Every structure is written in C-alpha cells, then in structure tokens.
C-alpha cells in the first residue's frame, strides 16, 4: 500500500515538473487565445475547446454521468455556458482548464439533479468537488486532470469493497477489465451460464448496497458490513 502511495506521489511530482517545464510557452499561447476568445474570436475559442474538451469529457463528465449520451449533452451545454461567460474569466496563472472544469462540474451537477442518481457519483459528491475548487491551490488545479480519473476509480473500488469477494471479482474481471465471459467463468471455476447468474446477482447486490448507503468514495463507513453488505446467503434468495 505504501509503495503504491509512494509511486502515485512520485508520478504527481513528475507530472507537475513536466507541466512546469512546458508551462511558460503553453500558458502564453493559451492566454493569448483566451484574450482573443474574450474579444469574440470564435476561432480562438474553438482552439481552446479542442485543446481541453476531450480531457474534460473523459476525466470529468463521462465518469460522473455514466453514459456517452449524457456526457455529450453535458459537454455541449458546458461549451454553451463557456461561450456566454468567457468574458468573466480572469487569468490566474494556472491555465484555462481549471475554470473550464468548474463550469463542467456545475453542468454535471445539474444533470445529476435532473435524473435518478448514478451509483458511483451523486449530487452531494459533485457539490463537494465544486466547493473544493474554491479552496484549491494553483498546484491542485494543475493536478486536477490526473486526479479526476483516479478519484473516479477510487469511488468504484470503494463501491466494490462493500461486496463479498466473489461478487467483487466477477464485476472486476468482466465489467471493469472487460475480459471475455468464458475466460472469467473459467477463472472463477463455474460454467459460463452460472457465471451469468453470478454477475447478475453481483450487480444487483451492488445496486442494493449503494442505494442503502449513498456517499461512496467518502471513506469506509463504520456501519457497513466490511464483507460487502449482502452476504452470499442473502443473494441466493
């Protein structure tokens, strides 16, 4: 565990140095683009969105909204908001992305409020993220790209940790690692048809656990059964 944390910290420092090294040129170009976009130059705005949009989609919107269609809608809505609000943006030395990310988080929050909560992210979690933006340092903001993806994975891991190990393995191998059904069934020592039922029960158990106890990824709960909410006996019924 310590090794993993150490490696992650080293990667972050490396990423920070990497960003610092190419920052001056990159920031000067980006600042010029922002200034042009604020004067109404749509070409400049298009270049800014093309630079950061794909990252925004993959690290912020898709993990929080859970589907391509919702994430694309949210991205489009984010761009419309950027278009009308770019005049309010003030350069703070950390680039355009952190501001864009905050706009996207607010859009994602609106989307989550409009529909049934997703299992992995809920409105409270996204609200907390938006609140954290106001307290973050420039270094935090530079690291936000890499942290977003990791935070999302962490929430998935926290959700799976509440399940029994067999259910966790079924979801991990088939859904997250996208390994073929037959291969996973063999690895788990069951027939493919039996594995289908096992996976169905595992997902059902996960849904039940998260509905009973929202707030995944906020640390382990003292009231939760560490074995994973429903026991295999519960799910046999």
């Amino acid at each position, binding site marked *: 565990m310590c090794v993993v944390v150490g490696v992650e910290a080293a990667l972050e420092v490396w990423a920070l140095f990497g960003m610092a090294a190419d920052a001056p040129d990159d920031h000067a170009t980006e600042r010029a683009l922002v200034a042009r976009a604020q004067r109404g130059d*749509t070409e400049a*705005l*298009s270049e800014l*969105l*093309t630079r950061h*949009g*794909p990252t925004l*989609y*993959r*690290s912020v919107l*898709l*993990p*929080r*909204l*859970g*589907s*391509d*269609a919702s*994430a*694309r809608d949210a*991205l*489009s809505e984010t*761009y*419309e908001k950027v*278009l009308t609000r770019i005049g309010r943006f003030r350069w703070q030395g950390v680039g355009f992305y952190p501001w864009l990310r905050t706009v996207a988080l607010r859009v994602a929050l609106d989307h989550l409020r409009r529909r049934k909560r*997703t*299992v*992995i*992210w809920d409105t409270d979690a996204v609200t907390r993220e938006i609140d954290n933006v106001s307290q973050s340092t420039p270094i935090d903001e530079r690291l936000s790209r890499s942290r977003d*993806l990791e935070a*999302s*994975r962490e*929430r*998935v891991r926290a*959700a799976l940790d509440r399940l029994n190990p*067999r259910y966790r393995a079924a*979801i991990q191998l*088939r*859904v*997250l690692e*996208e390994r073929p*059904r037959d291969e996973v069934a063999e690895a*788990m*020592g*069951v*027939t493919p*048809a*039996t594995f*289908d*039922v*096992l*996976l*169905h*029960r595992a*997902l*059902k158990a*996960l*849904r039940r656990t998260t509905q009973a106890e929202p707030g995944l990824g906020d640390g382990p709960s003292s009231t939760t059964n560490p074995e994973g909410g429903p026991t*295999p006996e519960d799910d*046999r019924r």
Partner: protein
Amino acid sequence: MTEQNDHGAGGEMADATPEERAEAERLRAELDSLDRDVALLRPSDDARLASELRAAYTPRAIEDGAHDALVGKVLGRAKAKDRHRTRRQIITFAAACAAAAAAAIIYRAPRPVDEDGERSLPEMRVARSAAPMLGARDTLRAGTAARVDRIAMARRDDWRQNRYATWGVR
C-alpha cells in the same frame, strides 16, 4: 463445503429462478453489445450499472470527429444567433429612422394652400361675450357661483376645440 460446491453449477446457482436466469441471459447479451461499443436502446438496470462502472473506471475518449462536430455545432449556433441579433438591431434602427423621418416630414409639411394662394387655417372659435349667457333666464335664476362656472365651462370648451383645430385632429 468447498467454494466450488458453494458457487458452482450444483451449488449456489442451482436455485436460480427462471426469471433470474432470463435477466442473467439478457445481461450477457447486453454486455456483449457493450464490448463491441454498440449503444443499448433500453438497457436493463444491470447493464446501466455496468456502463456506469465502466465509464467511471475506464472512461473512453470521445472520437475526434464527434468532438469537432460538437464544437462546430455550438459555435455555429452562436454565430447564427449573433447574425440574427445584428439583423434585428439593423431593422429596429431602420424602423426608428423611418418613423423619425415621417414625423419630421409631417411636422415640416406646408399647410394646404387655398386657390388664391392663402394658407388655409383651421376654423377656430372666436372669442365671444359672455353677456348672452348672463342674460338667460336659467342663469339669472341661478346664483353667482353657478354663472361663473357656466362661463368657465364655455371658455374651456372653446379653448379645447381650438387646440384640436390647431393640431388638425378635429
């Protein structure tokens, strides 16, 4: 009891209901579609959850073409809106100019001229004596205040009619 007996075909899954087996089969088909990046029209709850988990754990990148199209659509809409706004401002300005020009023309327009070259003036009420009113039997019977009121009303009416004649609205 071994794990194989607990979870194998003869153990845990032996009591799966037909409904459960049907749902499991549907999930299998849906996951196969998701593996091939085929969008599901009406995903089951299981498939929706599986998609959410994948989106959160290994989110896929948006294709360059799709992203460019999205940027183009949003910026294109903004440009169209700008054009529409500009056109509306021009039309409003033109209408205001036309109204102002029309008002100026009406204001400055020469009054109709008679055959003998004299400008025709509207028919005005001439100032008249209030004596006939004072001599009327009804008025004599009324008090002083009533007489003054009647004269004032007559004067006011004359004045109003003359204003209307001057403006050309009578």
